[in-house]
């Protein structure tokens, strides 16, 4: 696990840096997605809700469009899809404990699973590995963001 400006960011995930979301290809061809530690920090930490829109289930969400929302008492915002895909399921655990998305963003706090439309074609648009993290570092520095 790398730490950039105090933000935990695993090397093996695929990031849509502009939107602070990650994607992880699963063995069955689906993609698990969530928000990064950076997003949790920007949202102010204590979340009141993480909601996957029920009507979006079974529908294709284009890359960068909202697949869920996060809200706190002071903040509300979208969680965009890192890749285009059909929304298969949301993480039920978040309904009882939305802050898992902040406390364990890459584990128990994943947000949704998608059936990607074209993972092999679209994954190159995401940042991953050491090069990806270097790009993420540039973004954090440009925006003056840290998780400390």
């Amino acid at each position: 696990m790398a730490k950039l400006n105090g933000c935990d960011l695993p090397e093996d995930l695929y990031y849509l840096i502009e939107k602070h979301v990650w994607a992880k290809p699963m063995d069955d061809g689906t993609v698990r997605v969530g928000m990064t530690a950076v997003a949790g920090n920007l949202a102010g930490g204590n979340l009141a809700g993480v909601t996957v829109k029920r009507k979006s289930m079974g529908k294709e969400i284009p890359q960068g469009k909202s697949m869920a929302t996060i809200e706190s008492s002071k903040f509300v915002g979208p969680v965009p899809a890192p890749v285009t895909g059909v929304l298969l399921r949301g993480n039920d655990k978040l309904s009882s404990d939305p802050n898992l998305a902040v406390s364990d963003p890459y584990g128990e706090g994943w947000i949704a699973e998608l059936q990607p439309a074209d993972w092999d074609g679209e994954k190159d648009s995401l940042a991953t590995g050491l090069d990806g993290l270097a790009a993420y570092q540039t973004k954090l520095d440009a925006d003056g963001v840290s998780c400390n």
Partner: protein
Amino acid sequence: MDDEKVMLIMTSGPDTPRRCATPFFFATLGAAMEYDVTMFFTIDGTLLLKKGIAETVYPKEGGKPVSEFMQDALDAGVKFVACTASTELHDIDPATDLIDDVKMVGGAWMWQEAEDCETVLTF
């Protein structure tokens, strides 16, 4: 009916500050959920669109002014429309007195838009 369109009718204004934050929060949330969100301002709600007013209305003492909730909604893509008749009620000149980003409409527009919306909320 377009199942992605929703409308919030905003009738609350500077006289009831505590009623003036949540409608914008809900509108912002709706936009984050990819709904096509319109806020229709009428009665006292229109006063919040008058230049310099929303900056002076605080839903919570020590909190942020309504203008910031409104800007969050606009940034999220919420559309503001205002009832022409309500500007007359408050002696507001729509051409010069209102903030940018506001479209003026008549009451019939509201009825037709409401028919097109899946959900209409009134505050």
